[in-house]
């Protein structure tokens, strides 16, 4: 059984490779994004030494690493799930002795691995050559980072699955998916690190799952969180991962009950 799930990862990886133009344009898009944010932040800093507790060097590294994390955790599971629900092909998948949501997770993972290895690794090398990115030398911190972006992937995919499953209950969840996408980019720390938000907003954001997606792994990687704080960040991620299983399970159960396959 496990080997079937591994195969779903492999096949998604191969499928991504099959569309070459997508691949090349992806690298360019990531390089442009990192560059654009780098120059924007440089302009904002001006002559200032630190902003929001970040030095220019830390900020540069933070940008590079948060895009690297994003390459891995980002996927379109919400859109895939909602399309499959709306065109009814979810029905076919239900006739297989395999968990639909697990298959989706695996496909997302295959996609993430592909982006990480083939978009981000070359993208990072280019970024390091052009911009003053300083990578940590401590192997423990690297290890911690990879564990944390694994959880970023899980939490982000869980949110995507929740958004996608809404297609069972509403006729069109396009707006919801857009909302989710903006929320994640804005509130997870890709566009703006958490420390730049005003105090009252931070207090709210501390209780939301978004910061666990980008901000926490980025902070550990750049060394802004270390020692006990870093372990704490990992714990926060784990708690969110565990907590999000509950609504997914409830929603899936409710969906099975009222599953209405289009074109019946």
């Amino acid at each position, binding site marked *: *059984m496990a*080997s*079937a799930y591994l*195969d*779903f990862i492999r*096949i998604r990886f*191969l*499928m991504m490779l*099959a569309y070459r133009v997508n691949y090349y344009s992806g690298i360019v898009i990531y390089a442009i994004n990192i560059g654009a944010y780098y120059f924007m932040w440089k302009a904002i800093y001006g002559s200032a030494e630190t902003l929001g507790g970040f030095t220019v060097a830390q900020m540069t590294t933070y940008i590079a690493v948060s895009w690297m994390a994003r390459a891995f955790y980002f996927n379109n599971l919400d859109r895939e799930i909602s399309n499959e629900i709306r065109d*009814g*092909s979810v*029905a*076919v998948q*239900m*006739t*297989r*002795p*395999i*968990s639909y949501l697990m298959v989706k997770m695996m496909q997302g993972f295959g996609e993430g691995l592909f982006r990480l290895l083939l978009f981000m690794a070359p993208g990072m090398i280019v970024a390091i050559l052009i911009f003053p990115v300083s990578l940590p030398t401590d192997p423990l911190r690297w290890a911690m980072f990879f564990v944390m972006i694994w959880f970023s992937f899980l939490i982000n995919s869980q949110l995507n699955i929740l958004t996608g499953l809404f297609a069972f209950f509403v*006729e069109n969840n396009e707006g919801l998916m857009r909302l989710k996408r903006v929320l994640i980019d804005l509130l997870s720390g890709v566009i703006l690190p958490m420390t730049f938000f005003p105090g009252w907003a931070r207090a709210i954001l501390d209780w939301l799952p978004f910061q666990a997606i980008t901000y926490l792994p980025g902070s550990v990687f750049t060394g802004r969180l270390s020692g006990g704080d870093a372990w704490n960040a990992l714990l926060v991620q784990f708690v969110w991962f565990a907590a999000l299983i509950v609504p997914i399970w409830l929603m899936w159960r409710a969906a*099975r*009950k*009222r*599953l*209405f*396959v289009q*074109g*019946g």
Partner: protein
Amino acid sequence: MLAIDVHQLRKQFKVQKNREGLKGALLDLFKREHTEVTAVKDISFQIPQGEICGYIGENGAGKSTTIKMLTGILVPTSGRLLVNGYVPYKEREQFVRGIGVVFGQRSQLWWDIGVIESFRLLRKVYRVDEADFKRRLDELVETLQLGDLLNRPVRKLSLGQRMRCELVAALLHQPSILFLDEPTIGLDIVVKTEIREFLKKLNREHGTTILLTTHDLQDIEALCSRVIMLDDGRIIYDGGLEELKERWGKGREVQFQFTDPIPLAAVSALTSGLDVRWTKENEVTAKVWIPRELNVSDVLSRVVGSSAEISDIKIFETNTDEIVREIYRTGSPEAKEAVRG
């Protein structure tokens, strides 16, 4: 043992109602109204192992909904169902190992990868032993002549090729029940025939129980010993195909072509006393309708034995298409008595 046992099965859907006009749309924004639609209304039937059963009905009669409940996709609103000894929606993952499903209008193969890759993936999904898989695949590839298609991606296959691959995909794990939802839709006559032959062989050699929905009654004539007919969510006929023809077949028609023009009254006189109806096609051709109770030969002997010279005789049997159209048109009243059990 019964392959499928369905008892008082019912499925209701909630459908959103869209109110009219701007005001209605604004009201909909805050409070939606729903209507309940009952797609399947308390149906019961049993299918023993090894049977090929046709499941027919007009669009929207509830065929696909039934199939989806039988395959564990939909949860029934009420009623009991047992397929292969399982309650499909409860023990879904265990249950689906023993069944194969083909939806004519949806592919279960992965669009972008080679057909063989899909098969290999399915082997792992169903945990089929490598040796069993090879043997089974070889057998299926040979009977369905897929040899050179295996490495092509699904999106480059024609519909006929795809459908044959779908059948292989549904059968790799040797299911004991096969559900087919319009398997021949959109196929040309050659492929249709091939698929029918294949299904017959499958049933004969492996004893696979087959339940198929179709709009093509030739599928039914070629394959099924039994037909279940559905109308508006209710079973209006369940029984043999021959019985169906006998019960609803309105008799036969015989067409005579005479060498000389003959008036209708003259031919009617030939069969006086018999409950038949003559119609005139043209100057020299007349048709007689003979009810089922009457022997065709009685009528024939009277006409042939007369002085009128006959150049040609044709006998028409009412075909299934006409019978079914007639049943759909008249609906259930006279059908109710025909429901078995």
